[in-house]
């Protein structure tokens, strides 16, 4: 490649690398959460089914009281290993408004698998009122809505520590090592043995954090496994086709060069 090309490529690389700088999107003044190994990262990553099931149990037990999951439908749980009957039972535990009856009144009916997860509060104002003014965000997309989302959420869940000496913690706030500004309104949601896992795994905070982040990653990117599988096939195919095209090109151009 001539110098023009080399420089162009170098410039593009410089630019791309600079975009990965952690300060680019300024996550506030908290250190970047540490890297945790995830089963779903990398070219061949997949969601650990057992972790997903446990993660749902953590969500249900520790998070669903304040955080909605409104973009996920109960039937989606069948994609991660829950049976149709289990899903019907999970859905039926909550109620949703039905179609107006013959008198025009709207009654409640048990939720169906085709319904989406019911949020704990009817609207943002109700959520704030119940949480001292703070709004617990819906978790359907939280992993995609934060830079390096899986590590970040994991960091926050495991980052509750005693405040450094001398730092004053306002009433109602908690010190967290990885949340922006180090002060978070949410009290530590996870505690050892806080959730009773149906597969009898020891429910340490670390285990729960890993499981619920795996579950939330699936909630945000249910297509991940299919996407990566397809990606491997597509890129291999394209490499082959491009290779063939290169040989054809060289042969056709042989008389010009």
């Amino acid at each position: 490649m001539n110098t023009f090309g080399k420089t162009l490529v170098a410039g593009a690389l410089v630019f791309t690398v600079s975009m990965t700088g952690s300060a680019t999107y300024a996550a506030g003044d908290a250190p970047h959460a540490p890297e945790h190994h995830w089963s779903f990262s990398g070219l061949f990553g997949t969601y650990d089914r057992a972790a997903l099931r446990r993660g749902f149990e953590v969500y249900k037990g520790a998070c669903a009281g304040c955080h909605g999951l409104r973009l996920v439908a109960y039937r989606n749980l069948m994609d991660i290993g829950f049976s149709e009957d289990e899903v019907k039972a999970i859905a039926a535990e909550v109620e949703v408004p039905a179609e107006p009856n013959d008198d025009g009144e709207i009654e409640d009916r048990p939720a169906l698998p085709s319904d989406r997860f019911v949020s704990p509060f009817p609207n943002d104002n109700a959520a704030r009122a119940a949480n001292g003014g703070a709004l617990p965000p819906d978790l359907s997309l939280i992993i995609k809505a934060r830079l390096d989302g899986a590590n970040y959420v994991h960091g926050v869940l495991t980052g509750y520590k005693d405040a450094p000496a001398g730092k004053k913690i306002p009433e109602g706030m908690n010190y967290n090592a990885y949340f922006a500004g180090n002060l978070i309104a949410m009290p530590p949601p996870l505690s050892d043995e806080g959730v009773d896992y149906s597969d009898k795994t020891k429910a340490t905070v670390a285990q729960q954090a890993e499981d619920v982040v795996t579950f939330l990653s699936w909630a945000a990117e249910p297509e991940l496994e299919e996407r990566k599988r397809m990606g491997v096939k597509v890129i291999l195919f394209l490499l082959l086709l491009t290779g063939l095209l290169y040989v054809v090109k060289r042969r056709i151009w042989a008389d010009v060069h």
Partner: protein
Amino acid sequence: MADTEGTAATEHGHEGETRRDFLQLATGAFGAVGLAAVAWPFIQQMNPAADTLALATIEVDLSKIEVGQAIKVKWQGKPVFIRHRTKAEIDAAASASPSDLIDPEEDKARVKKDEWLVLVGVCTHLGCIPLGTAQGETKGDFNGWFCPCHGSHYDTSGRIRKGPAPRNLPVPEYAFISDTVVKIG
């Protein structure tokens, strides 16, 4: 995109040409396969989405429907009539002879349990919704349903008896998953 089987404009040996043509053919075939694979998702995305498919079946609780009453439920965007038939209605349906019927069909073939009639409530003429389900609506000359648009009369089995409609009211796919709950679709 132009195909790769272009005309290579040089004077090579016949053997060279065959080799080259094979390579170009192989590349072209690969490319065609690739194009087909790319086209598929764009066609498939127009098929019903997952949330639409999730509403393809509904379950209806029949325990609140009294004898002689009927309800209308929505299924796949269309109304479905469910009537809890009286003995008189069942007998009337069973006793009709084929020569009376525009679209001959036995009542037994149209129900799974005699007292429960499940029909898609769309007139087979031009698609209006026949009257006769709700309390007080006219049931037409044959005590079933009456379509106000062009005057089709259906009997207590939902079969067309008089009027322009050509076929009986269709029976959707359904099954009793318990004595009181029916799954439609």
